[in-house]
Every structure is written in C-alpha cells, then in structure tokens.
C-alpha cells in the first residue's frame, strides 16, 4: 500500500464538484444534509471536555520473566523493611503483593503485628535453643536423632529433617505451598522456603519443583494487579496492570479480555452487567418465560399449545380439546361463552397481572437482545468484509489512477469494527442500567426516564453514523472514477471521526451521568479510541530477569561438582548472591531486544540487592 503518499492526498473538504453528485446514495440523507450533520456533530464534540481520567498500563509477563517481574516488589520489602528474602516473600504473599497496603498497615498496626499476622517470626532465636548435646528427641517421630539431622525454623522450633521433609511433602501435595506453617502446635510462623527447597528436593525433586512453581506463581494467583491470560489453550502468559484495573487488554497471544473479570472485552457494559447478561442469554430463561406466558400444556400429550384466536375451547393437534382458562380436558360441544359440562373459575386479577409483567419483561429483553445480536452478528462478518475490502483495494491500487493510498479504507474499517463492538455492548448495558434488576431504588422513575432518553439519544446517533460508515465502506470504490473515490474517502474519514467522538461521548455520558451518581460504585473500562491496549513486553525487568535466570544457570554449573547442593543454591540465588554475569556477550545479542534496554546495565555488574534500586540501576 502506498502509505508514503498519505500526506499528499488530503481530502479536499470544500470542493464544489464533490458535493454535487451522490446520486447512488439514496438510502441515506442527501449529501448536503449529511455534511451539515457531520460538521455539526464534530463541532459539538469539539467543545466537550475529553480528558482521560483513567490511567492504566499493562505488560505481559511470560514464564521466563515471572521471577524478574516480582523482583521489584521483593526488593522494596527487603530494603525498606530490612527483611530477608523469604520473609519478604511471605509478607507479600500474605498481603496479596499490595506494597502500598503493606506500608499503610505498617503505620496502622506497627511492625510487630504486621509481621506476626503474616507469619514472620519477630526475632530469629539464636541457636542457643539447641543445647550442646549430640542427640535430641524429635517431638514428632519420638526418635532420638543426632543434632546434625535436626533443623530449626526461624520461630525457634526444631524437629528432625525426616519429619520436616514428610510434612513439607504432605503440605505441598495439599496445595499449601505458599503457606507452609511450622509444625509446632499454634505456631503461626511460615517455614523458610530455602529449607523446604533443600529438604524436599533431596527426596522428591519433582515435588520441590512444584513448590518452586507455586511460590513463583503466587505473584499471579495472589495478586489483584496480575492475572493469567484467559486464552485457551493457555498461552502461558500473565498480564500485569498498573493503575486502574478496570481496563481491557490484549495479550501478546492476541487474546483480548476485560482485565477485571477475565471474560471477553465488554465495555461499556460493566462486569456485573455482563455476567448477568451472558447468563441470561445462556439460560434461555426468556424462551421458557414465553412458553409459560403464551402456551398451556395439552392435558393429554403435554405438548405446549399456543392459542392463536377463537374461543376458550382449544384443540391440540393430538385431537384433545381443553379449556384455555383452566387447562382441563373437556368435550368438544361448546358455545362462545361456555363449554358444555365444564365450569371453572375465571382468571383471577393476580394471575393476569403476573402474566402481563412476564410478557412485558420478555418484550423488553427481546428488544435489547435483538439489537445486541444484530451488531454481534455483523461483527461475525468482519473477516469476510475485510477480505472483500482488501480485494477491492488491490484492484484499485493496480488501476491507472493518481490515487495510490487506500489506508483510509482500512482505518475506516477498523473504526467500524471498534464502534460496532461498543454499540453491541451498549445494549446489555442499557438493559440493566434502566431496569430494577441491579439498580433498584437508585433512581426515581422520572430520573430514569430522563437519563434513558439522554442515553438512547446518543446511542441512536452513534448507531446512525455507524451504519452510514458501513454503507460507505461497502461501496464498490474500485469501479469509481477518481473524484468519486475522493468523495467516498472524505465521507469515510469524516464519519470515522464522528463515530470515534460519539463513542467517546457515550462513554462519558455513561461514566459521568449514569454510573457516577450511583450510591454503589460501578466501574467500566474506559474507551480507547485506538482499540484495546496491547500489553507491552515487560521492559523494566527484562535485564534483571535474564540475569537471574542466567545466574541460576550459572550457579547450577558452578556446583555441578557438588551434587545435592545445587538445587539449594539455585534457590537461594533466586534473588540473593549472584555470580558475575557475562551479560553482553554473544548470548544476549541475538535476543532481539532494543539496544537502549541493554545499555542501562551495560556494566554487567554484580547486582547487589543491598544497594538501593536507583543505585543498582546506575552501577
């Protein structure tokens, strides 16, 4: 595509020639009206305040960088609270990796309570607890064991290594890896992960591996700001969001989802509304509703029978006649007002109002569902439409014409898809916003009507313009003369802008006028005119993660000569001591990372955790 020409082909906005002929466009308003409308809408929108008050940024955490991603938080704990690494992890797991909250609680509760609630022993007892005898009795197996085969936890309790190992394995198998408590009764202390690693890997390396993974994955599982990508089959990635967690993201695997509820992106519908909506659609409860309202079961064959007119004697296709009022089987001899030999009670007031209500609810749901479905069905045609358009573009590009740039078609098409999504999800939103189901007592009926009118007005405007955009995009512009192509382009570009702004405006209406006044907070993901945020690769941690993964490898290599030790060593080097890194050797050059990322740490220096973050970065 001749993208380089983009600037040259600017739309000749007020060319009189172009405004004349648009004869093939009879399904829309006349052209002048169109333009007037587009401009007036643009004008109005220009005046609106379009500031973006939601801020969030997302990044992808792949398996390899999972360790690097959590390092920053761990380092903060280690430096600012003077904790050992495993204590820092325990604290973060307990408080769900919410660093800010930890510091808040530190103020409120004080250090001692903060730590003891998380299971960190307040002061590590010295080895004075272990007397200088050579044998002690383990309080779990009651065996006398040499002092060398006994391990003491930070809380001061000691048992024999065999018992510890058995206990750890049971706990890991129970899925308790992140909260393995000391064996002593009522002791709340969380066991030192290094000891767990060391003892378990000596007996069952596979379970030790599982422990390691569980521990690492705590950063995703026990963390409100990190979530697994919901793709199936799972791509292995997690997404971290900083800022507002009510947002929609796209993983590097291409999966788009609502970060807050992990289901498909559904704004401007809120998560609560969306959950109710898909459930409602799935249940088909409305179909059942319709059947109960409009049919009665035949007393003989039990098929639902709908009365399509006539008197109260209804005949089923099986031949059975029955009374429509009570559903009871009758003979066929009847008049308009009575069935011979049959008498039954009349409709009670109560029944009829209930039926009325059910009927109203059904029609209401059908109204919103039909529109929702119409737009989602159009979306399903996306791929086909895109193919068609690409075909048209390729024909046009090979034409003998001075117009070479058709990027506006693609841009318009993307705008169309984006706004169709917004439109389709705006219907379930309206269904719940203006009903009693979620927001009972939040609005008076008058208020509701007012707001509904306001919203529906915007929704209709958007819908109208989206359909127009769609109409222009479907034109066979490959057969057009140049001036017709220019005209179509002008409309597509203008309408794209209008539609984008209308979407923005509708979101603002929803956020500021509809949801904000509610007593119970209700949040939606903000409108992103460029589409969903694609989660960025995790830049900050790239280097350090690579370093640590390398360091793990190196520590393995170093200790190859001492089998049995290296799992322990690799564990403690998760963050701690680290051998010298030959980082900018040939190995890192083919990693394809942008060069400036590497420069930050070009020293390849020893990464010392006792040095504050800024200093460490500079060194």
């Amino acid at each position: 595509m001749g993208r380089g020409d983009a600037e040259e082909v600017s739309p000749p906005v007020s060319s009189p020639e172009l405004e004349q002929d648009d004869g093939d466009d009879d399904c829309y308003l006349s052209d002048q009206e169109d333009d007037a409308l587009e401009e007036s809408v643009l004008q109005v929108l220009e005046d609106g305040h379009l500031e973006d008050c939601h801020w969030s940024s997302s990044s992808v955490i792949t398996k390899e960088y999972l360790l690097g991603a959590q390092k920053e938080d761990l380092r903060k704990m280690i430096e600012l609270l003077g904790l050992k690494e495993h204590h820092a992890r325990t604290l973060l797991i307990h408080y769900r990796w919410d660093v800010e909250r930890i510091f808040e609680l530190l103020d409120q509760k004080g250090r001692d309570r903060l730590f003891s609630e998380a299971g960190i022993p307040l002061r590590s007892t010295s080895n004075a607890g272990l007397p200088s005898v050579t044998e002690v009795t383990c309080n779990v197996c009651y065996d006398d064991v040499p002092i060398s085969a006994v391990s003491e936890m930070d809380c001061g309790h000691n048992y024999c290594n065999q018992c510890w190992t058995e206990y750890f394995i049971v706990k890991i198998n129970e899925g308790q890896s992140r909260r393995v408590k000391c064996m002593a009764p009522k002791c709340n202390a969380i066991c030192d992960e290094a000891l767990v690693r060391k003892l378990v890997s000596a007996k069952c390396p596979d379970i030790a591996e599982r422990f390691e993974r569980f521990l690492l994955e705590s950063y995703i599982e026990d963390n409100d700001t990190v979530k697994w990508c919901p793709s199936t089959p799972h791509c292995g990635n997690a997404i971290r969001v900083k800022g507002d967690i009510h947002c929609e993201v796209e993983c590097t695997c291409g999966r788009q989802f609502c970060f807050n509820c992990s289901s498909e992106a559904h704004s401007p519908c809120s998560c609560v509304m969306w959950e109710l909506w898909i459930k409602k659609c799935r249940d088909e409860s409305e179909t059942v509703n319709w059947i109960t309202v409009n049919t009665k079961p035949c007393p003989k064959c039990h098929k639902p029978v709908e009365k399509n007119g006539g008197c109260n004697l209804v005949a089923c296709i099986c031949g059975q006649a029955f009374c429509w009022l009570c559903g009871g089987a009758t003979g066929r001899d009847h008049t308009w007002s009575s069935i011979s030999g049959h008498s039954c009670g009349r409709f009670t007031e109560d029944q009829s109002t209930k039926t009325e209500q059910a009927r109203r609810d059904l029609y209401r749901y059908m109204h919103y569902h039909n529109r929702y479905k119409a737009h989602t069905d159009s979306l399903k045609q996306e791929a086909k439409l895109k193919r068609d358009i690409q075909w048209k573009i390729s024909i046009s590009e090979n034409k003998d014409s001075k117009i070479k740039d058709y990027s506006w078609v693609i841009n318009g098409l993307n705008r169309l898809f984006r706004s169709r999504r917004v439109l389709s999800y705006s219907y379930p939103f309206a269904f719940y916003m203006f009903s009693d189901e979620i927001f009972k007592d939040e609005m008076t009926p008058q208020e509701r009507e007012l707001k509904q009118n306001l919203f529906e007005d915007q929704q209709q405007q958007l819908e109208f313009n989206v359909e127009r955009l769609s109409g222009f995009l479907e034109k066979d512009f490959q057969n057009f003369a140049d001036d017709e192509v220019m005209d179509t382009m002008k409309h597509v570009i203008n309408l794209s802008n209008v539609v984008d702004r209308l979407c923005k405006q509708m979101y603002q209406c929803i956020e500021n006028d509809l949801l904000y006044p509610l007593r119970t907070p209700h949040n939606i993901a903000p409108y992103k005119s460029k589409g969903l945020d694609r989660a960025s690769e995790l830049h900050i941690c790239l280097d350090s993660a690579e370093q640590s993964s390398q360091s793990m490898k190196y520590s393995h290599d170093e200790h190859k000569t001492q089998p049995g030790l290296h799992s322990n060593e690799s564990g403690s080097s998760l963050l701690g001591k680290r051998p010298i890194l030959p980082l900018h050797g040939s190995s890192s050059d083919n990693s394809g990372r942008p060069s400036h990322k590497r420069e930050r740490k070009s020293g390849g220096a020893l990464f010392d955790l006792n040095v504050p973050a800024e200093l460490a970065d500079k060194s």
Partner: protein
Amino acid sequence: MVDVSRVQKELTECNRDSAISGVSIALHDGGSSISHLTGTIAGPQDTPYEGGTFRIDIRLPGGYPFEPPKMQFITKVWHPNISSQNGAICLDILKDQWSPALTLKTALLSLQALLSTPAPDDPQDAVVAQQYLRDKSTFLNTARYWTEAFAKSDSTGMEEKVQKLVEMGFPEDMVRSALLSVNGDENMALEKLCSS
C-alpha cells in the same frame, strides 16, 4: 504410610496413665490394623456426661501424623458440636489446626474438654445447638439421659423398661425411640406408644 513406630509409642504413652487422664486407645475391635483404633474418654465431672464412657472411632490417614486423624463418636452423644446422627465432630485441631506435634492423646483430651465446654456458636448439630442456647434445662436433661442410655454399660434400668414395653407387644425400635423422646419416663412412653 502411617508411621507405625510413632503410633505404637503413642499407644503405650497414652495408656500408661489412662486411669488419671480418663482417656485410652486400643486397636479397633481387637483387630490388627494400626491405622484403625478406638479411643475411650470418660465423661468429665460436673457435666451431663459425667459417669459415661464414650467410644470414639479413630482412623489414621496414610500421611499421619502429618495429616490429622479422623475421629468420630461411636457412642451417641447429645452435644452441640457432635452430630446426634452420626457422631461427626466439629473441632479445629482435627481439621486445619492440626499439628504433627499433637498426638492422639492430646486430641482425645481436647474432645474431653469439648464435652465440658460446648461451643454452640460453631455447631455441628444445629438442633442441639438451638436447644442449648434457648432451653438449657431441656438440653441438660436430654444430654444426661443420652449419657445414661448410651454411655453407660450398666444401663440396666433402661433395658428393663424396654423389656417391659416390648413384652406389652410394641416393637423394640419404637419403644426405644419413644423412651428417648420422653427422656426415659416409662409412663409417658407408654402413653406415646398407645397414641401413635
């Protein structure tokens, strides 16, 4: 696998002072499996369970002592934290508060303590707990009666009454349930049986 040597040590240790502690453990029904045991606890003094001997079914899971033992009352007990239907027990140290450093003996002692201090706010048996909270005297009577009827080997008085009513021609199971429902009053039970 169950740590056999530890369980054996526990049994010896527990039964050494069972006369004082009031708790003892034996292999279940004189069987040979070390993982199926029966514990007995004496009903604590100054409680409606006083004088009774309560038998508890103990099963040791493969991970014992790293997993808690499974305990259930064999003897029927009227207590808010013990199911009156099947003897299931609601006690934290038999669940998440279990520690490998605890023993069967400490668990049984905890059950003994549970008998003397019910926790009706965390009930296993809602009916009993309701009664405990609303009508303490009926609760005490029922608990005492159940102790009398089920937890005493020499509950001859009870058996005599059953015998007598059975001889009048009522089925035994109906007799027992009627006697239970009126706390063992023979005349009231007869009235009940006749009216039903």
